[in-house]
């Protein structure tokens, strides 16, 4: 409903009636504060709890997928360079983007210790592939000759294929 004020011009707005205490507001505040505290506690518990095996497996597979994306993209860029389809600044930017994805993946993998032996085995299979991808991507990005580029391309395609196999085997 529209609220139309009834007052003479120049008069100020009405104040609270004398003696009125806004207790309802205090109750509501208390309830909200308790709810927020409970939410925060729950959040703190879930974030600081150590990861279990399925969490680790999921993280590892995401890392593998990211690494596979970066390696696959790196191979694509190398192909385009060999075909003369791209100019220098674009290739540099594209390699940078792929490298960023890859280093993000590597950091995530090395950031958490594996919770059990099976997870450790997964990490041991994945880590060398990620490292090889990092090396090959760097080689492709700074390659100055077609031979060097083709060599890096070969490694990138190989690593991408092995990463795909690893993902399939662990799905």
């Amino acid at each position: 409903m529209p609220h139309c004020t009834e007052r003479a011009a120049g008069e100020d707005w009405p104040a609270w009636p004398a003696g009125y205490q806004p207790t309802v507001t205090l109750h509501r505040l208390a309830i909200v504060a308790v709810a927020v505290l409970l939410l925060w506690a729950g959040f703190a518990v879930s974030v600081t709890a150590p990861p279990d095996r399925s969490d680790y497996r999921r993280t590892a597979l995401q890392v593998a997928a990211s690494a596979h994306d970066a390696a696959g993209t790196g191979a694509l860029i190398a192909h385009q360079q060999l075909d003369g389809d791209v100019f220098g600044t674009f290739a540099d930017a594209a390699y940078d983007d792929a490298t960023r994805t890859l280093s993000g993946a590597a950091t995530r993998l090395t950031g958490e210790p594996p919770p059990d032996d099976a997870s450790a085995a997964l990490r041991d299979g994945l880590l060398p592939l990620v490292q090889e991808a990092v090396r090959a991507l760097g080689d492709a990005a700074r390659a100055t000759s077609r031979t060097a580029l083709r060599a890096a391309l070969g490694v990138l395609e190989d690593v991408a294929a092995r990463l795909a196999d690893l993902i399939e085997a662990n799905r």
Partner: protein
Amino acid sequence: MKRFLAVALGILTAIGGFVDIGDIVANAEAGARFGISHAWILLLGVLGICSYAEMSGRVATVSGRPVFDLVRERLGPRVALGNLAGSLFVTVLTLGAEIGGVGLALQLVTSVDYLLWVPVVGFVLWVVLWRAKFNTLENVFGLTGLVLIVFIIAFFRLDPNYGELWHQASRPGPPHGEDWGTYWFMAVALFASAMTPYEVFFFSSGAVEERWTAKDLLTSRINVFVGFPLGGLLAFALMVTSATVFHPRDVSVDSLSQVAMPAAIALGKLGLAAAILGFFAATFGAAMETGLSSAYTVAQYFGWAWGKLRRPREAARFHTVLIVSILVGVLVLMTTIDPIQLTEYTLVFSAVVLPLTYLPILVVANDRGYLGERANGRFANAVGVLFLAIVVVAAVAAIPLMIVTRMGAG
């Protein structure tokens, strides 16, 4: 003849103007991860925005006032304030994402990091909005955005497997490696990118800036029914080229450089240059639209003088909101958040805010006080209500999907 040219120009600008960083990112990502099994979502989104843009255009041309101007009158100051707050939050975030997109496009041709471009782009954006004519802006960036047609050409040059693509499109669902959760999350993001909230408010205010009257109703309709579908076609071209190049290799797209690659592979350096130019025009154009849209909605809520058609000193509050919006957008980017990630989050928030945006339009378009006999008929209302229902479903599902799929990662 002159009138024909004006209409043709309007269509052309409409096409280029309807692809922004959200469309670019969402369509490329969907194509890479899901093939074109989301094609039907894109179609749905285009139909939805056509329906509501037609209504907004009609309201503006017939009543002489933009849709948002009328929201407060019809829905009351409280509801309209909620609408303003929601739309403004999403639009300013989108503005930040667009500026980021411009920076990324510039990084692809210079070797300068996008973050260094961001303040420059923000400043140039403001200068352009301060000095250039509304019409000129629309024409230049709309027409330049048309070069995104290169992706349609690239698609045919890539010699794709049409049978496989048809199979993906006609059997909507997650391919190997994805699940229904991520499929629907991507669907919501795509739908939100097609039904961008700021687009209808901008179109409506733009109609008033261009001084359209009731006799321009046909122009408005042609703009909508030719422009938006063709814009949707450009977005689809991004999806399908990404599906052709990245999906068979099982590679996800998460950078602007990847989106441009199909054009390079198919058409070489020239295709690549055209693609980047198209990205630049689309994102810069969208940055202008989101910036203006933020200022339009605030000014129209409070009843201030607004618009580029007025002298800036006579619309000081309007221009101040514009400057502040650009500043906030730039500041958000300077937190070094990845612009692609910012775009993804913004799409989710857009989805949540969609009902707030579209319900008032439906209400206002039914008002005979403003539109007389041109108020919504039964067909317009049926379509409008249908899409409003879809929009509500998307809005409700957005945040839960985001949480359950961990932002689509699965």
